[in-house]
Each structure stands twice: as structure tokens, then as C-alpha cells.
């Protein structure tokens, strides 16, 4: 497989790593300082809403990762450039982990807020299904031994899954209006105070930097795999 990356791009990917790790750590330090110490507690939820600063970025990036996964699968079909297949499968694992984090932290946040660890709320249920969409993608990729074929097949599955997301969302919303008991108080914060925006923003940035760090490491793994394959072929 020819990666079709220029030397310059490979150079950037290889050199960026220490810089990215340092800036991730710095961003998380600032983020933790602001989210745990500097920001005031919520007037309804008290300190428990500090979980938001890790929950919300993970949920955002879980969704963003699936968009990238589906988008690069589509681009892969159009251009047949293997880099898109690599992007897709690199982002899948990261996306799955962030979906897991957002589910777990959401559940931990739910306990003090709603009194239960889990509610069958439309958003939570869709997120749970998203986790299984990621899982299906990764399992399918792993279970096909011919990797060239696997990238074609799992790209098709990623797109099917993406088509399925609005349908799942629609049906789960509809199901939820039928079954939802009215007693559960929703998180009512359409307008977030500026003092909460700052830590949220920093934590989002830090999470994003982390995501890019891991993503670049995965790209380097792929580049090295490719190199090793080349050398073995020449032999």
C-alpha cells in the first residue's frame, strides 16, 4: 500500500509528538486548575457539575470522531487514497474510548443529579448505541484477515452506521417521548455562565490536544508498518 504522504508531512507527524505531549499536559494542568478550583459551584447542582468539564468534551469528541470516521470513509471511496482508510481506523479506537468515557462520567454525574446511575433517556440511549456502532466497526476490521479487503468492508459499514445515526436518534427520541416518566429533572442550562465557559473551553482544548497526540502516534504506527512491509517485500 502506498501511503501517498510526502516526506514533509511524515516529518511533521514525527516531530510533532514531544510538542503535542507537552502542550497536552500543560493544557490539562490549566484545565484542572480552572475546573476544580477556579470555577464556582453550580447554584443548583453544587460541585457535582464539575463533572461536566470532562463529560461534555468527551461526548463532543465521541460524536466528532464518528463524523470523521464516516467522512474519511466516504472520501476513501471517492479518492481511493489509503490515507483516508488509515485516518478512519485510527480515529475509531479513540472515538470508542471517548464514547465510553462520556457514558461512564455521564452515569457518575447522573447519580447525584437524578438519583440514579442510569436513565433511559434519549441522549444516553443513543450514545450507548453509538458505542456499539464503534465496537462493530472495530470488530469487523479485526475479524477480516485480508487488510485490503477489511478497509473496504469496514468503510462501507462506517457509512451505513452513519446513515443509521439519524434514524436511531429519531426513533429513540420518539420512543423516549412515549416512555419517559416526567419526574426526571433534565439538566437545565441552555445558557452557561462565563465562569463555567472558561474551564470548559480549556478542558475541550486539552482533550482535543490529547486526541491529536494519540492520532499522530497511530499515524506513525501505520507509517512504520508500511515501511516494515516494504523492506520485507524487497527482501
Amino acid at each position, binding site marked *: 500500500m502506498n501511503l501517498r504522504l510526502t516526506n514533509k508531512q511524515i516529518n511533521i507527524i514525527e516531530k510533532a509528538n514531544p510538542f503535542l505531549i507537552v502542550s497536552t499536559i500543560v493544557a490539562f494542568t490549566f484545565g484542572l486548575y480552572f475546573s476544580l478550583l477556579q470555577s464556582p459551584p453550580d447554584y443548583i447542582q453544587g460541585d457535582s457539575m464539575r463533572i461536566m468539564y470532562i463529560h461534555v468534551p468527551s461526548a463532543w469528541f465521541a460524536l466528532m470522531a464518528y463524523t470523521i470516521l464516516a467522512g474519511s470513509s466516504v472520501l476513501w471511496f471517492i479518492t481511493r487514497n489509503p490515507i483516508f482508510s488509515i485516518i478512519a481506523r485510527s480515529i475509531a479506537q479513540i472515538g470508542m474510548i471517548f464514547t465510553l468515557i462520556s457514558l461512564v462520567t455521564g452515569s457518575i454525574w447522573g447519580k447525584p443529579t437524578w438519583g440514579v446511575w442510569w436513565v433511559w433517556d434519549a441522549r444516553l440511549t443513543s450514545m450507548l448505541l453509538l458505542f456499539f456502532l464503534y465496537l462493530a466497526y472495530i470488530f469487523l476490521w479485526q475479524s477480516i484477515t485480508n487488510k485490503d*479487503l477489511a478497509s473496504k468492508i469496514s468503510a462501507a459499514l462506517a457509512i451505513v452506521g452513519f446513515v443509521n445515526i439519524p434514524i436511531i436518534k429519531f426513533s429513540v427520541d420518539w420512543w423516549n417521548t412515549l416512555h419517559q416518566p416526567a419526574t426526571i429533572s433534565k439538566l437545565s442550562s441552555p445558557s452557561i455562565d462565563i465562569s463555567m465557559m472558561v474551564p470548559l473551553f480549556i478542558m475541550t482544548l486539552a482533550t482535543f490536544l490529547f486526541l491529536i497526540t494519540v492520532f499522530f502516534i497511530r499515524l506513525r504506527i501505520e507509517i512504520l508498518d508500511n515501511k516494515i512491509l516494504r523492506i520485507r517485500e524487497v527482501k
Partner: protein
Amino acid sequence: MNELKIKDLTCYRGDNLVLKDLNTKLKSGDSLVIRGSNGSGKTTLLRVLSNFIKLYNGKILFNDHNVLEDANYRNCFNFVGQKNCLKDNLSVKNNLKLWEIIYQKNISYSKLLEDFNISHLMERDVASLSDGQKKCISLLRLNFTESKIWYLDEPFVFLDEANSQILIQKIKNFNTNNGIVIITSNINLQNTFTNEIKI
């Protein structure tokens, strides 16, 4: 007279180049043995010739028509691969019946089985047969079409001496009836078929 021409055939599987610039020409009555070590692309070649795998470069011409564009070509050949196309849980007779429906051709089963002297297997379940017997039955599929070309992938594997001779005789008969045969093989068939290429 039919003629099969292979011109500069090149084929990739994934990123591996398996066939490179293969050229050959076969006329009615010719048979060709393709030899090569495991993984050298023999099966790939037959699957390319059967239009299952796209070729990267080159042309396959049947009677000077490119086989990719010739809709009639698929009725002109029969491909017997290493998979035996048999349903394990059904009897031999029912398996033949399924082929009959696919090929839309009525045929006398008992006569067919006589070819390999296996008439007694008619009612047996395929699962209870030996590999050699399964191979014999899978080769019977050749009788279901009026094909002009046979592609046989490792047909002698599992066959005993007597059945191998019967198969060789069948191939020779087909040749005298103007058929073209391409066989892949691990073993040396130089004594029976002179025309041989190595890949």
C-alpha cells in the same frame, strides 16, 4: 474453431503482483497445464480467466472478442475450483438437482454417476463421503453445460489412480470434441499433457 488468447496479462492481489505479462494462445482441442508452487497465482489466473477477478493490465480474447465485453462468454466456459460446490447436509441426488436448476439443463443422474463408477452413492449424504468421492461428484458439474472451455483448478487432488485416468480420458474426449482445457496442477503431468507453462 475457437481460440483463446491471453495477452500481457498482469494482475495484482491487494498490493502483491501475482501475475506478470503472461502470454499464451490456445486453439480448439488444446489443453494447457499450468504449474507453479503454492501461492504462485495459479488459482488467481483461473479466476481472472473466469472474469471473477479484474485484471490490472492485458487482455483476454475469446474468438477475438474481449471477454470482459462479451456477454456470451460466461456461457462458454465451466470453472471447477477447489471448493466442491456441494451441500454437506443433502444427498448426492439433491445436490445434482440443485445444479440442474442453476444450469437449467435436464440430465440423467444415474448415467452421470456411472462416469466415475459411483452409482451406488446416489442416495448418500455428501457429508458421509470421502474427499475423493466429493471431488468426483464436483467434477460431474462439467457435464451440465455445453461449454467450450474448461478451467480445472487442481482436479487431480484427492483422486485415486483409476479416477485420475477416467478424468484424463474425459479431458482428452473433450479435446477431440474441440474443447479447450486449462488445468492447474502441483504434480507433473508432462506425460499426459505436453503443453505446459510455469508461473
